[in-house]
């Protein structure tokens, strides 16, 4: 099974990063073979909605689960629609976290675990509907 882990670096010996939308990169790990590759997060400097874009990017990777620290409501909604399991509150060395995941030590988050960020309502601006 392919899973994504938010990562502080590009090896299995790096740490799980607590961030999702603003994390530098993800490791896409095959849980059977422990083969992996790093995926840079293009949304790190996005305006509003970094979590949404990140979640969409991961859904295109066909991962079945995401291990991270925190996940807000918008990204959570996207993962849900894509049928991706979200596991929050994960920390420590990535290799260990993946092993724990394989052994079934984690349970899927039923709700987002952090309040909406600024991204929830966008970057503001002059936006207005005319009618």
């Amino acid at each position: 099974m392919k899973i994504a882990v938010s990562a502080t670096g590009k090896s299995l010996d790096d740490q799980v990063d607590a961030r999702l939308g603003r994390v530098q990169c993800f490791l896409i790990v095959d849980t059977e073979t422990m083969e992996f590759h790093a995926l840079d997060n293009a949304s790190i400097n996005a305006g509003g909605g970094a979590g949404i874009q990140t979640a969409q990017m991961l859904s295109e990777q066909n991962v079945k689960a995401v291990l991270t620290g925190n996940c807000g409501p918008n990204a959570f909604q996207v993962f849900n629609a894509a049928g991706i399991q979200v596991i929050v509150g994960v920390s420590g060395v990535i290799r260990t976290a993946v092993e724990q995941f394989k052994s079934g030590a984690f349970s899927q988050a039923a709700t987002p675990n952090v309040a909406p960020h600024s991204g929830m309502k966008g970057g503001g601006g002059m936006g207005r509907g005319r009618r």
Partner: protein
Amino acid sequence: MDSDYSMKEIVIISGKGGTGKTSIVASLATLAGKKVLADCDVDAADLHLVLEPEVLSRNDFSGGKKARILKEECTACGKCIDACRFEAIHYPPVASRTVHALPQINPTFCEGCGVCVRVCQDNAIAFEPAVNGQWFISDTRYGPMVHARLGIAEGNSGKLVSLIRAEARKIAERDELEFIIVDGSPGIGCPVISSITGADMVVVVTEPTLSGQHDLDRVAQLTSHFQIPTTACINKWDLNPEMTRQIEARLKDQGIQSIGRIRYDPAVTRAQIMKSSVVEYTGGAISEDIRSVWRNIIYALGYFINK
């Protein structure tokens, strides 16, 4: 990150402008231990006037893309004018028109939606990231500070606020600092929401006036919606002691912890002129008021953690 390392982010906001928020932040900067300062009042940043930061790094800020008409390609068909919801595209005024009057995009009103770019059949509109301001990492006599300057009449302050907070957090994590002290902005809108989401505590600085009370009510609804622990102090409380008592009673009803009263003192203005924080400038009673507010912030943090 070690789980026993606990850094706290404290955001000072006011609802109503001009209640003395930045002066109080400057004093807290003087009093707090290991900390990083973040000036998120990006619309009217004033903290640097007191803390005199020495800029270490200077970076461009882009809030998004803006559209620009390429004169060589444009056939003046006018489709972009009709498509723009933000009324940012117009033909030039008749008086100043030449034979080939091309539409003009006013960058102040361009929202960066890109609709004009897509309706243009001549590929005559460029769409590139715009530089809306600069942000800085600086050194001050009270430690590192992250701050910014938005360009004249530029928007997107919410995104800049998020960026400043994220940079301040990086510094706090790197140096294992105890506090991030954030100077927020007035109001309840976009930059304020960006300033407070996910913070450990909000301190609302209000004043004993009907306007202060009204604005406090609205800002309290906002922090309660985002479930952020909220405290409040009343600045210039002796201007109207009766109103001060009224506001404190109301705070109690709203479940907001009162963390003290700060008296009115012309020394606040004199300190500002001397580029000092109030507690640096005077040993007077007002400085004791502010010290007591800081102690109460620390107690309240402990209370929220153990709750």
